[in-house]
């Protein structure tokens, strides 16, 4: 084994603490929701910041043991995506009007965290990691960063749908809430999808240049076919938005749907892939 049992427990314990804090943030978000997001609050921001600190520590411990980016199995990949979402939120959440993104992000983070902690997703590694080398790490990191951007875009899209519904149906909370204007939410969703798409494209290009293990075909691999489909899906969303003037509502539904598809099929395709799960 490349790390001791004690070390393995240590980094997973840090992650467990981070997930607990994400859970607390989710509970607090329910109160914020019930109050109609009327008060600007740093509580959720600081909870997620604390969770991020523990989360980063857990990833750093694993990374230092691996001596490269910790993206070797489904546990590590899932924690990396969640980490990207928190990191992106902590940047945009510094702006008061976008701070409530945290309330929508915390349930996603908590669900991802609980899922990642399932023991079967984190099997002990062999004497050497399955994936090694700077290019491989960069390929995996870029793609997981893209997933993080898509995740945050889905959160912003959900926020857009909530506020759009309030405005359409003349709910008082549409004006009482401290949410940003829906036009800005639409812009944020759009930019996050574009960022994610660029990162995904770069990650896939780097992946295509990686040496192929003997006896494997790129285009027979379910994960690669799935990644290609995902790339086309997000491209279609962006094109329909720009070229065919798709409404903000449809775009937001599309972004949420695409991320739901990503989350629900990511693990399955990874398990089926001989290249990614040898």
């Amino acid at each position, binding site marked *: 084994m490349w790390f001791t049992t004690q070390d393995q427990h240590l980094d997973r314990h840090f992650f467990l603490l981070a997930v607990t804090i994400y859970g607390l943030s989710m509970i607090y978000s329910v109160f914020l929701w019930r109050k109609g997001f009327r008060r600007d609050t740093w509580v959720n921001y600081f909870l997620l910041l604390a969770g991020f600190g523990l989360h980063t520590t857990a990833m750093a411990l694993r990374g230092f043991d691996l001596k490269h980016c910790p993206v070797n199995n489904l546990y590590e990949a899932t924690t990396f995506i969640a980490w990207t979402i928190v990191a992106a939120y902590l940047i945009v959440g510094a702006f008061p009007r976008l701070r409530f993104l945290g309330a929508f992000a915390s349930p996603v983070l908590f669900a991802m965290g609980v899922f990642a902690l399932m023991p079967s997703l984190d099997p002990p590694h062999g004497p050497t990691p399955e994936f090694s080398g700077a290019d491989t790490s960069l390929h995996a990191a870029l793609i997981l960063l893209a997933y993080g951007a898509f995740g945050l875009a889905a959160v912003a899209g959900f926020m857009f749908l909530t506020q759009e519904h309030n*405005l*359409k149906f003349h709910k*008082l909370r549409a*004006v009482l809430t401290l*949410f940003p*204007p829906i036009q800005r939410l639409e*812009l944020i969703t759009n930019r996050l999808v574009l960022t994610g798409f660029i990162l995904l494209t770069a990650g896939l290009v780097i992946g295509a240049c990686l040496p192929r293990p003997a006896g494997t075909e790129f285009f027979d691999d379910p994960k690669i076919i799935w990644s290609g489909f995902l790339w086309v899906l997000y491209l279609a969303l962006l094109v329909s938005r720009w070229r065919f003037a798709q409404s*903000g509502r449809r775009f937001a539904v599309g972004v949420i749907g695409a991320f739901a598809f990503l989350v629900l099929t990511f693990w399955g395709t990874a398990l089926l892939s001989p290249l990614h799960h040898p």
Partner: protein
Amino acid sequence: MIVVLGLSHHSSPVELRERFAFHEARVPAILQLLRQERIVEEAVILSTCNRVEIYASTPLDTPKAFAELKEFLVTCHDYRDPLTDEIYMLSEPQSIHHLFKVACGIDSMVLGETEILGQLKKAYDLALQHQHTGPRLNKAFQRAFNVAKHIRTETSIQRGSVSVGSVAVELAEKIFSSLDHRHVMIIGAGDTSEKTARALLSRGAQSIIVTNRSHERAQALATEFGGRAVNFDDWSNEFAHIDIVISSTAAPHHILTRAKLEPLMKLRKNRPLLLVDIAVPRDIDPEVNLLPNVYLYNIDDLQAIADDYLKQRKEEIVRCEKIIHQKAESLLGLKTSTDIAGDNRLPFPNLRKSA
């Protein structure tokens, strides 16, 4: 002892309030006169469209102070008709409570409005500049301003808009990233639509287009707003550039229907459109709200939001009064020690000399 004597929209009609109003330029001289006659040691006069009040620190016993102040007020305005309950007189602690309530907008006609705080500050500054305030009123007014700030941050008494026009502006701010560069169209010139357009312009809207069955009226209004007028038959041609529409025609039927708007929305490419229909009967078919990126509000929707805001403000009154009570108690507790020191010194030596 701080006392308040005055009349407000609660106690008297506008005809009486205007008789007792003080012109700002006269206030320093009147304050000087009040003090020269030894009725008060310190005084501030607040005179607005809804209230005329004298806040004073007086050495006289309360009934005598009230009688003298009332006589002064009546004589000052040469008012000879009988007065019953129109003039109210409050002594401590009610006078302090009243001052704090006025500062917070709780005693205002529009509950929670903030304009009164500015007027109170101005009245106080005027008295301060002319050295008609002293330690008691300075402390009371400074505390009143702090209480107003505290209540604004801790309660929702000043939250939201309670007029139809300002609710429309608030809605626009929830839809558009910024009101800068927004184009507004007024269909049919009416009082509420004018007020709404004015509010939108003050919040940064870039231009106003006015259309009306009477083109002259549209032209006049457009000139007033620095916008332009378009023929009533051509208004839909402008829709590709418009972000906010305020409609208030006297048309007996819908002038904007879903069938008419749907092709126009395609020209707008993702841009949201806020439609404010303040006409009765309605100008805009409610079905247009089903179109993507269209947000339609009629007069009842806006009024319902304004009423909800007002209801919320009313619900906050108990919390505000609790805070005011605590702060007033705290001030009066502090004042006791000041009084002990203050009694041995002359607040206005120059006045004593001149008197």
